[in-house]
């Protein structure tokens, strides 16, 4: 019987070696595989190349991984955030290598890797600093630059529900990089709110087919949901709304 469900989150990440290339899903907080990143911090692998849209926020998650000096290189489109101080510090100190990629090129390069495309010509970035040193071609009168796929050894993504075969569905804009990263990595590890029975996911609505997923880690329902229904009561970072003027902004989470 095929069973990709891996309830032990440490076991799910145990084989990520030093020097691995790891994709991390999410756009801001939405779709971020929070528990998997925390488990990667505990797991200890270093000298990592990270592929992710952003470079971490606050003192947690990817920001913490960077603070700990475990990330050698990052490919992302938008590292600068109001609270990206750990990335900022490492970057200014020359302790992290950055490949800045326009967001659509980042997405398409990831997609290309999963789809077996050798390289592709894109108009995005023509005439800008990111085109320097790249092959140019004029096709039907328009100028393009050649971009290569981005592959990874592991992808850590967040989905809403999954089954033991690895089929996944997402929730709203949390889908973002999940489906393309799942296809682009040798080993894809998805954290889900809930594992459902095979057959419970409508085949017409499956977003990531099981073939792209290797491990499914159930982490429990998130605070703004109840039995799969949206109940709210949280801020945009998923922290409970403050009651009675509490000063805690959830930084310890």
């Amino acid at each position: 019987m095929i069973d990709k469900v891996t309830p032990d989150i440490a076991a799910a990440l145990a084989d990520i070696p030093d020097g691995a290339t790891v994709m991390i899903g999410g756009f801001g907080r939405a779709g971020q595989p929070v528990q998997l990143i925390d488990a990667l911090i505990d797991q200890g692998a270093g000298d990592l190349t990270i592929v992710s849209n952003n470079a971490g926020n606050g003192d947690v998650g990817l920001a913490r991984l960077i603070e700990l000096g475990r990330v050698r290189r990052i490919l992302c489109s938008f590292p600068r955030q109001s609270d990206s101080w750990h990335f900022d510090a490492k970057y200014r100190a020359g302790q992290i290598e950055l490949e800045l990629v326009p967001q659509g090129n980042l997405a398409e390069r990831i997609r290309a890797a999963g789809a077996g495309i050798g390289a592709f010509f894109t108009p995005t970035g023509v005439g800008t600093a990111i085109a320097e040193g790249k092959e140019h071609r004029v096709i039907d009168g328009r100028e393009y630059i050649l971009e290569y796929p981005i592959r990874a050894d592991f992808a850590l993504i967040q989905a809403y529900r999954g089954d033991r075969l690895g089929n996944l569905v997402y929730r709203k804009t949390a889908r973002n990089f999940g489906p393309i990263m799942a296809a682009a990595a040798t080993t894809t590890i998805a954290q889900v709110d809930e594992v459902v029975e095979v057959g419970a996911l409508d085949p017409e609505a499956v977003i990531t087919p099981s073939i792209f997923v290797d491990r499914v880690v159930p982490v429990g329902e998130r605070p703004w949901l109840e039995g799969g229904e949206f109940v709210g009561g949280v801020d945009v970072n998923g922290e409970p709304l403050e009651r009675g003027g509490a000063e805690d902004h959830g930084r310890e989470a």
Partner: protein
Amino acid sequence: MATRISRGELAARIAADIPEGAIVNLGIGAPTLVADRIPEGREILLHTENGLLGMGPAPAPDRVDPDLINAGKQPVTALPGAAFFHHADSFGMMRGGHLDVCVMGAFQVSQRGDLANWSTGEEGAIPAIGGAMDLAIGAKAVYVMTDLLTKDGQSKLVAECTYPLTGVRCVSRVYTDYAVFDVTPAGFAVVERFGDTTHEELESMTGLSLGGAA
């Protein structure tokens, strides 16, 4: 004396130019103000790069859904008829020429329509591009929404951009607090001046020879 209009008035002016049925992407910051000023009864669809077509206004504070945000990572809603999609599809919509209009901010726009809005090239600054380069070359019409002058009084309309480029020959029209400018083969042309602003004052502020009715 040249007259300026407010950000809100400028947003309303831009909204007035967005036609019925348009698919529109509004950049982070001031361009988001345009959404609230679309004339009553006009149906447009808002696209956000992180995977939503049919974006609605911000929810009430107790109805914020961390799984439902916009490109600025602020909470939004999804209107009836909305669709969610992954990033490669979302940027395919841009690059593939499916968006009718995008509205973005700018550091500089050159008279041939080059846009600089992602970096001032400042020493030690953390670079970030996001979706700006894809939007700039992808949308059928690229509208820039900006103050005409920087805080130091420098014109953002320039002969040649000195900041790193976002896209080449991509801007269609520039909406500023003093006037609206079209990018034409002959350079900037004044489409509309606000209040008492004169053509000569605009030429003086930009240091450029401007087309359009004087």
